[in-house]
């Protein structure tokens, strides 16, 4: 009880400190607006918004303001994706793909205003559910993570990369794993963390410090989007918005179990390393369809379907921050960009993180969700107007932002070369349907994996038994092995046969 009261008073203090600072509101309003704009424009993503702002603010702005801007943009962008989903049948972000299933039919039926009002409410509630989960579970996990040593960290990092590769692949799972391995390989460049042995530097002194996170993020997420987005495409025919955008409280009351379930699913999926909001949206939509009494209406303009995906994708944000803050493992691609922001501000998320920062993050999330809710209700018309602007107007500006951001953080031209190189490679990987998120997760977690894996062996004197002699390590190892075996045809067939015998 004392612990809960301490946390609540800590949260209250952090919240109050932000509320009484007028600068907070400037950052909040601008960043949420930018986020919704990025989300609303097909071709610009939440990851891109957070990545670009990471480069833009660098480490010259107080961390609080930097976090307000990044989290505000994150929350705004995930919500903003629902605008084109509902009005154009084109998801603004991958996170809103499931929203289009029911949002567009509703708009076609003349209930666009109601649909937007409901997505605004659902996104707001979803963000709050995720934030509450963050506030509750982060402390539990922090306590547990005190017992996590090098073997567990190594296996956890590997699990994050494998899981991200498994779940983010559009085509073959193996491609996700390859992307993760390419990211891990990129993380090997530079001086190794234990012996300072130069690896793959080819005599280039810039490479001694390894691949910097921000240029890699910019290259991987921004450059392919720019190349891909520079196509002549009609904006599409906007469905006429009928009805006022108001929170539909009756629907919220009626579908409260759906909202709660979707919030829990979204938070849970978010807490899985490197998975993200798009998976959360689809998983929640799928579960909703299978358990709902109105399952047949899904895809034909069901309010429940709309609530399922929109609540989950915003709840995923809070979930994605849990592994990020507790273990330093990002729960989603935008969270990977956030990790980059933490790093350039010399904050290492993980078991040793300052609890004050966690409380501030929670307070910012609450403020950002309220700002998003108010903006969604009162400034929706502006975003609908923005939807009419072609992408080719925005993307060149994004390129300039990306360039200046990459340069500012690293302070060198080499970072721009790195950004461009990674960008072209990422574009080609996109072309071959390799997912990019596992690559980025691999780059971010590669150093951690390398260091902890070797430290484990060093402590055990080269005895690999260290990876299953500890209970948590054994569980994590089993998870890794199970994940790999689940994709091997032979074991899949065996499992199918066993299943067949069972029934």
């Amino acid at each position, binding site marked *: 009880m004392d612990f809960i009261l301490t946390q609540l008073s800590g949260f209250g203090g952090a919240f109050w400190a932000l509320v009484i600072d007028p600068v907070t509101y400037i950052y909040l309003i601008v960043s949420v607006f930018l986020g919704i704009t990025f989300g609303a424009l097909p071709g610009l993503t939440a990851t891109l918004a957070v990545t670009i702002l990471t480069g*833009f603010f*660098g480490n*010259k*702005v107080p961390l609080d303001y930097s976090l307000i801007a990044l989290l505000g943009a994150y929350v705004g962008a995930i919500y903003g994706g629902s605008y084109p989903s509902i009005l154009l049948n084109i998801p603004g972000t991958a996170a809103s793909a499931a929203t289009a299933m029911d949002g567009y039919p509703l708009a076609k039926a003349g209930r666009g205003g109601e649909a937007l009002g409901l997505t605004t409410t659902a996104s707001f509630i979803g963000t709050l559910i995720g934030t509450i989960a963050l506030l509750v579970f982060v402390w539990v996990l922090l306590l547990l993570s005190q017992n996590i040593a090098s073997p567990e960290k190594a296996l956890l990092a590997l699990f994050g990369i494998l899981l991200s590769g498994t779940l983010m692949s559009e*085509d*073959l*799972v*193996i491609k996700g*794993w*390859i992307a993760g*391995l*390419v990211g*891990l*390989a990129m993380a*090997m460049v530079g001086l*190794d963390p*234990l*012996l300072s*042995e130069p*690896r*793959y530097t080819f005599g280039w002194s810039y490479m001694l410090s390894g691949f910097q996170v921000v240029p890699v993020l910019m290259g991987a997420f921004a*450059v392919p989007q*720019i*190349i891909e987005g*520079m*196509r*002549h495409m009609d904006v599409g025919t906007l469905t006429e918005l009928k009805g006022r955008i108001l929170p539909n409280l009756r629907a919220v009351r009626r579908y409260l179990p759906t909202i709660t379930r979707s919030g829990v699913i979204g938070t849970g999926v978010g807490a899985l390393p490197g998975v993200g909001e798009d998976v959360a949206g689809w998983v929640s939509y799928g579960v909703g369809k299978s358990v709902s009494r109105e399952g047949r209406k899904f895809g034909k303009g069901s309010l429940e379907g709309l609530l399922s995906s929109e609540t989950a994708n915003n709840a995923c944000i809070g979930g994605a921050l849990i592994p990020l803050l507790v273990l330093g493992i990002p729960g989603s691609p935008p969270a990977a960009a956030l990790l980059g922001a933490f790093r350039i501000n010399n904050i290492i998320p993980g078991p040793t993180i300052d609890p004050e920062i966690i409380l501030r993050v929670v307070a910012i999330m609450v403020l950002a969700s309220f700002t998003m809710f108010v903006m969604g209700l009162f400034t929706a018309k502006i975003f609908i107007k923005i939807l009419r602007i*072609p992408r*080719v*107007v925005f993307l*060149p*500006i994004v*390129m*300039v*932002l990306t*360039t*200046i951001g990459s*340069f*500012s953080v690293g*302070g060198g*031209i080499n970072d*721009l*070369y790195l*950004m*461009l190189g990674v960008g072209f490679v990422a*574009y080609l990987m996109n*072309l*071959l349907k*390799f997912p990019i998120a596992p690559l980025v997760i691999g780059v971010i977690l590669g150093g951690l*994996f*390398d260091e902890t*894996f*070797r430290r484990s*062996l*060093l402590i055990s*004197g*080269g005895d690999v038994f260290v990876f299953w002699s500890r209970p948590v390590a054994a569980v994590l190892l089993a998870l890794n092995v199970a994940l790999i075996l*689940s*994709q*091997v045809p032979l074991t899949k067939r065996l499992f199918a046969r066993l299943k067949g015998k069972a029934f």
Partner: protein
Amino acid sequence: MSQKTPEPQSDDIAVLRARDFWGAIVLMVLSLFFLWRTSFIPLFGDNRAGVSGTSWYNSAAIVPLGIFTALFILSLVLLSIAIRAGGAKRALSPIGIGWDRAEAVRFITIGVILFFYTAGLVPRVDFIACSGLLITALTFGYHKGRITRMILASGAVGLCGAYALVAHLPQSEWGAHDDDIVTLAVWAALTLWVLLCARGDGVLKAVPVIAVLAPVILVCAMAFGFRQNVPNRGGLIFSQIEYHYYVTLRPLWRS
């Protein structure tokens, strides 16, 4: 590995498998190359400058060795999936790998623009000028999807970038201003051309305004608002802005 593979598939999947064939080969070559490079890192306690190295398990080579071996094995699996799905048969024909001339032109011209902007212009030319040129070129070139416009846009950026690279390759010459003038001239010419083509096109009419305002606002916000480092502070336009900010404007509110 499991996958939604290699049964008879749609044309898109067949094209993808043909591309996978080449992708797997490239990955195999790369992983073999890096495995060879890994052999340069001491593994079994080599002597370095008279100091004996570490045991195998603490070697800096152990993790990369695992990564590139795994990458090689997965590349082999991908290659086998591609071959079983008929990717190898299709891989040698342009149609097989889904070659699309218009798409190739689009990618190559964007590639040229981004390369010359990042590698040639940003380090050497005033950031406002080269970003203005980039915004003008990209918006004009790709707004209607016309190939001639794409080529013209990439030619404009390529010309300026190539001049900057050739005339001032070493870092000691990056402060020169002749490449700034060339870039400004090409930007002005391209802007005039854009305005000539802009009849009845609101987007093209807005290009000159966006191309000037966006980089000016961004670079000023970064340099003076957030106190961040910006590229090429000695550029023709930005050096003047910076001078007047510190000498003319700042004293107004400082005093």
